[in-house]
């Protein structure tokens, strides 16, 4: 029996900077997790990952990560993705350096 599909987002790292990026519905790569396209259908998610992987000149290492809907857009489910969406906990470097909150 098929298990219910956990919604996903497509995430990767930017080729030049290495920053964590998220694939948006309009095919941009955003630095913000909440801008990501929430993929609630498995077949669509697989297709979006394939489309992302073709953008080798922009990103590295695209993969699907679990996510859930939130008031301001998709939110991470696993702590690893939460850390990726913020930055390290020992310095205010990475994304949190620009957002002013964590």
């Amino acid at each position, binding site marked *: 029996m098929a298990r219910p599909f956990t919604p996903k987002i497509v995430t990767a*790292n930017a*080729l*030049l*900077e*290495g*920053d*964590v990026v998220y694939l948006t519905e309009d095919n941009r790569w955003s630095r913000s997790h909440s801008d990501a396209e929430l993929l609630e259908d498995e077949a669509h998610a697989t297709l979006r990952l394939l489309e992302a992987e073709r953008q*080798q*000149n922009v990103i*590295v*290492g695209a993969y699907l990560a679990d996510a859930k809907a939130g008031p301001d857009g998709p939110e991470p*489910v*696993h*702590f*690893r993705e939460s*850390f*990726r969406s913020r*930055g*390290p*906990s*020992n*310095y205010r*470097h*990475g*994304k949190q350096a620009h957002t002013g909150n964590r």
Partner: protein
Amino acid sequence: MYRYDDFDAEFLAERNAQFRDQVERRIDGSLTEDEFKPLRLMNGLYLQLHAYMLRVAIPYGTLDSAKMRKLAEIAERWDKGYGHFTTRQNIQYNWPKLRDVPDMLDALAEVGLHAIQTSGNTIRNVTSDHFAGAAADEIADPRPYAELIRQWSTDHPEFQFLPRKFKIAITGSPNDRAVTRAHDIGLRMVEQDGRTGFEVIVGGGLGRTPMIGKVIRDFLPEDELLPYLEAIVHVYNRYGRRDNKYKARIKITVHEAGLETIRAEVEEAFQQTKADFEGVDARVIARIRDRFVVPAFIEGGADPLDGTQTDPVFRAWADTNLSEHRHPDYAIVTVSLKAHGQTPGDATAEQMRVLADLAERYGHDELRISHQQNVILPHVRKVHLPVVHARLKQAGLATANVGLASDIIACPGMDYCALATARSIPVATQLAERIDALRIEHEVGPLQIKISGCINACGHHHVGHIGILGLDRAGVENYQITLGGDATETAAVGERAGPGFAYDEIVPAVERLMLAYLETREDESETFLETYRRLGAAPFKEALYGPEKRKDAA
């Protein structure tokens, strides 16, 4: 300190030019990531969680002021103003941009540094005793041999695609400060009938299958070192498993085939390699020795330490951070990069410059990086210790905790590392802050706490007196404790204490272990490890889980 020759400079320049071209071709689309990845890894460039990471080799942990200043300059110019010293005596920059990396490598090459073989299935940076060349207990400086191994293993055509990575550590002292028993090959200098040679240890390693290395040769004459090493790696290259990444290290090869079989194979291969080398390595080591400049030690000036120095802050620091030098008028200074609450192993560019200045002015221009993530000034005249301490204090580098509970090894963990399953740095910083608040560590005495953020064990948790391993348990960070590990010549793998602890439970758990030790030790002279060895795990398990739980488990 070894001075590199023209061959080294040309080799690095050529290699860097190749990589610059490879980066350009990746950016313009001529190379795919699949094609580029092995090339960037060969040059120490990883992609981590938030950014690229450049791992720079510090051969056998030795630096001079020019190299340290260059590391500072790179941190400031192309990174975020700091660097992270690792448990393999390397430095990692956590925020380089892909386009900048060729320039960073060129800058490193100006002082003979590089990132070659800091990744991939090759022979990695050779590590050594961080007191090498200075220690009172040393038979001889192991670094000329380490340099010989570096030259032999760099770009060695047979060893570029080994079954798995390969790590060698070497020490010239009977007291093992280089964790030689947890390396693929460990070399311990020994003397026999007036001759210098090595005890050769093979098949040690940490990671998911921790093993203490086994002695494959009691005594290897020093002039047979390279052919013997080549024979070992040759046998491993042939028999090491390539079908399963987790069984590919030489420790598994030795474990599965048996030490006797491997020894016989190595000895057979050795007959051939010995003939092939024709003594060339003996000539090379002589040349290397000539290029290692031994400091001209200055006599006298040891008096101020004998009582005139009354500043209690200085004395506390001198008690923990100084070690015996082979020259009676000198001391070895360990500079702690473990200020309570700071990231273990991190140094700012400004701190690196202070260390470079101190080395140049008061330390015969020598520095070492330890696998314990501290910096060593190996040759400081005792007369200069107060002024060195004062300058370190101004730079936030005078924490008096070397060898104590807050001198914690921690890998980058999930704050940076793409392989990590949990964070290590905040566990280390919170633990150190708690230890500081309790004012307990001087009473507790020698205690090594080592934290890894995944099973690969970069934080050496298996050989910590208290080891902490961060795991992902059903989407939540969970920390397993091991007890009784030992990283020295009496090496031992720690035993798992029981169920793991949540992120907010791990610091109180370690606190209970320290308190249990203070309650149960025979007297002040018995260390944590000795108490553990005398009493076993029971009192510590009780401190962790309480008496009822222990009964349930039994």
